[in-house]
């Protein structure tokens, strides 16, 4: 062990000797995986803000000037979905943005923080895709029928149309859920495995 310590001292001396004074630049590198995740969530938030505003505005317009109460209910459902989406994503995004707090913590805290944040946000995305995509698809389907035929009763009176609406929801939902899981796995799977492995090494 004494040999190792002697060699390490040599490494320290060589490192110090080789340093060339350079002005430090305090900017993030463009390649950070976690920063990429935060960026991705921020973009998603913009979309949700835009959808919430659009559905909110449309709902308001429909309440004031629209003829169909059923359309108003559908728009209200979409508006509420947007708000729930926002509620699911926003707190995690805000926590992810504060990551420097944990950078001066222990290794375990930092690794757990990163792992937990990424796992949670991915889980929420998958959940959104699984639960909200089929409902959105069915609401869209119903909206189109109401727009064309005047009432949702047109669907309720025809079992085949009701079945088509449900199948559309299931297919779109399954596809949405599969896409979300697959895309997150491709984008962040390796990074999550890496964090998990580092945490495992500390056990």
């Amino acid at each position, binding site marked *: 062990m004494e040999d190792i310590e002697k060699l390490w001292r040599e490494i320290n001396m060589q490192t*110090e000797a080789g340093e060339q004074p350079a002005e430090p630049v305090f900017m993030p590198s463009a390649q950070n995986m976690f920063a990429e995740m935060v960026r991705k969530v921020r973009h998603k938030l913009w979309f949700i803000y835009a959808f919430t505003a659009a559905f909110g505005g449309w709902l308001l317009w429909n309440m004031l000037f629209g003829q169909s109460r059923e359309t108003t209910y559908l728009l209200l459902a979409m508006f509420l979905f947007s708000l729930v989406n926002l509620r699911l994503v926003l707190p995690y995004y805000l926590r992810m943005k504060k990551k420097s*707090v944990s950078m001066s*913590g222990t*290794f375990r805290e930092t690794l757990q923080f990163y792992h937990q944040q990424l796992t949670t946000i991915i889980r929420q995305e998958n959940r959104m895709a699984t639960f909200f995509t089929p409902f959105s698809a069915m609401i869209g389907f119903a909206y189109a029928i109401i727009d064309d035929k005047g009432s949702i009763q047109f669907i309720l009176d025809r079992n085949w149309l009701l079945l088509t609406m449900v199948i559309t929801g299931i297919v779109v939902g399954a596809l949405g859920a599969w896409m979300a899981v697959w895309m997150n796995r491709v984008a962040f799977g390796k990074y999550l495995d890496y964090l998990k492995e580092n945490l495992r090494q*500390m056990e």
Partner: protein
Amino acid sequence: MTNDPAPSELLQLVQQHAGILHKIIRLYADDAEDRRDLYQEMLYETWRAYPGFRGASAFSTWLYRVALNTALTFRKKTLRKVNLVGLDAAGQVPGEGIPALSPAAELLYRAIRQLPETDRAIISLHLDSYDNEEIAAISGMTKNHVAVKLHRIKTELENRLKRG
């Protein structure tokens, strides 16, 4: 991103202790491009975390902690190699100017780099004279766990060095 300029005392402190960063970078980054990115991330995280530095420990200990946490969590978003041509023009690559090590020291460095990432952090802290209690406080492990880990790491390193 850098709306607030780095305080001048931080600039000075980082320059004084840049050896810590270079040493860790060489333990964790594989090539010049990775070293440059990791160095930049370390500086950025140091700047972000600095307002929370209360002086409870020495600056070098705090910097060591931030740098190791950055190294342990930093992964590049793509494996793409881009624009290697302009690297020299962009400035010094961290760790590039360090004189060549003796073959034995080089062997030690290689042996440490082959360890799992958290073990690299623990052994480098130990070799830089941090005691088990300090390493436990930095890593979040118990003191006993650190002692057991260090024993295993040292045995592993000695075996690797013997094998050459």
